[in-house]
């Protein structure tokens, strides 16, 4: 992936993502089926907006026209030039930002969810998919690697299943993906919005600080020992119980 085009060129062309907020829900849509460097940049801009200026408590990431995301667009590559790893680094940094966002995130999947699209779905807090959707990690089949999906996937499905999914690269139906913990909820075709709305409602208030800290500690549980992490937990817990959300809970409890 080469570095993307300049900002002025970007605005002249159609955007690759859209960000639209209704009430407490920010809708981040991927407007093209494959991931270009331009999309990586525009996703970064959307995350700037979500991190810095958005009061939304939830983010729903979806595709359009029956495709969630079908992976990398090879148009950004030039076979005659030395390969550049920098674009992949940008992509990983982007996924970490989604993963750590202080908002509850839902991947609303309809249609192909392949390669980078599947990686993006993995960093969301919940994955909802229509029955016709298909999840596939086909990178190794194509001769490259599924990003840090190699690091994340086994945490969802177990090492054995992750090996099979990554090495064989076979498409997995939404129903099969749900059985192994790769998809959380399967919706009937055409009923995705209602299923996503039900998931959002289930999050309840999604207090930003508690949400962010809870996500962070869960992620760190994979990288740190219990002894290393408990200090972090205590620091995070002290911050959480010093927030208005917990004080409100105490008030409601008559304290």
């Amino acid at each position: 992936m080469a570095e993307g085009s300049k900002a002025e060129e970007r605005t002249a062309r159609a955007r690759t993502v859209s960000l639209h907020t209704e009430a407490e829900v920010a809708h981040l849509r991927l407007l093209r089926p494959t991931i270009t460097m331009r999309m990586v940049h525009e996703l970064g801009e959307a995350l700037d907006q979500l991190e810095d200026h958005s009061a939304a408590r939830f983010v729903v990431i979806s595709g359009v026209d029956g495709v969630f995301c079908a992976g990398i667009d090879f148009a950004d590559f030039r076979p005659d030039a030395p390969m550049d790893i920098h674009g992949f680094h940008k992509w990983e940094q982007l996924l970490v930002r989604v993963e750590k966002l202080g908002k509850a995130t839902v991947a609303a999947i309809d249609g192909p969810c392949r390669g980078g699209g599947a990686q993006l779905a993995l960093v969301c807090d919940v994955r909802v998919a229509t029955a016709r959707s298909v999840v596939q990690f086909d990178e190794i089949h194509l001769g490259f690697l599924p990003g840090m999906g190699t690091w994340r996937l086994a945490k969802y499905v177990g090492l054995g299943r992750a090996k099979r999914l990554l090495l064989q690269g076979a498409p997995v139906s939404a129903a099969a993906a749900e059985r192994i913990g790769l998809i959380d909820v399967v919706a009937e075709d055409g009923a995705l919005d209602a299923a996503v709305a039900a998931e959002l409602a289930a999050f309840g208030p999604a207090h930003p600080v508690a949400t962010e800290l809870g996500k962070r500690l869960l992620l760190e549980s994979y990288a740190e020992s219990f002894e290393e992490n408990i200090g972090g937990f205590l620091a995070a817990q002290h911050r959480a119980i010093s927030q208005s959300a917990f004080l409100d809970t105490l008030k409601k409890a008559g304290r």
Partner: protein
Amino acid sequence: MSTPAARILAVGTATPPTRYTQAEVLERFRVANPAVRKLFLAPHVRSRHLYLPAADAEGRPTEDQAALLRKHRKGALALGGQAIHAALEPLGLRPADVDYLCCVSSTGFMLPGISAMYVKHLGFRTSMHRADVVGMGCNAGLNGLNPVAWWAASHPGRLALMVCAEVNSALYIYDDTMATGVVNSLFGDGCAAVLVGADVLPSAGPAPALVDFESHLIPDTWDAMHYEWRQDHGKFSFVLDRDVPYVLGLNADLPVGRLLGRHGLRRRDVRHWLIHSGGRKVIDAIKYTVGITEHDVRHTVGVLGELGNLGSGSFLFSYQRLLREGVVQTGDWGVMMTMGPGSTIETALLRF
């Protein structure tokens, strides 16, 4: 800060020659209290360089307050001299080339002050401007660096030096209680010197501009860290409240937010965090409040583990490690952060 910007041109550090593991200190003074032993053997501090006294027949250290004050003075001179040399020598400079000297110390009291002692013994000019920042605690390195940076910015072409000279083992009291155990297991001895100048000679390596400073005092927690005269021991004792980490943690994002906000920066724009090695709990509290990672605090944690909490100069040991890592790039933003009594949080914004 007005142009030309003051830059950090060099850093030097020094620690006492003898390194002790935590187990060695326990052994030397025959610490029996299991709770205190556990404190020492926690994994966050593994070793420290210390000026430790001999033990008497019962394993008690033999220093009275007069001996502790002498130790502070001698240590500040020996380690300060080494740190100053380490900062100046690579640039071909000598103490006589320095135009302004600021000395920071909280682990002993002397009069005349440390800066006067350095002039007498280390070859600084008798006409050099001086200031001593005394009794401000672990945060004081940035309280000293702030006026040093302003002095340098308003005297382009001239050299300012700040020395943080702490002999924390001059604060040790041995009574087998948790209160003194916390101090005795955490703090190490060490000095750090930084050379600062604006529009002056080229530095040997990265020379970040000191762009801005921001302070924060939490007067409600006045007693959280303080010196107390212990009549029973005839010594000063440093008292550290157990809630200190959390108090500091809850407030840490306030000065950071103001500092970055003034410059239109976000947390994610900061590539280098140089945070005081106050203790593992303080570091955790800062991590989860400011929203930074274990990677961001790697030098803070590394200094704590190998050298302990070195008081006011700790963050400069981290700064030195960052430079040695060789990852700094021109244009990078950095934040220095120190915490201490008051309770105080001091921050500085760096542009490499």
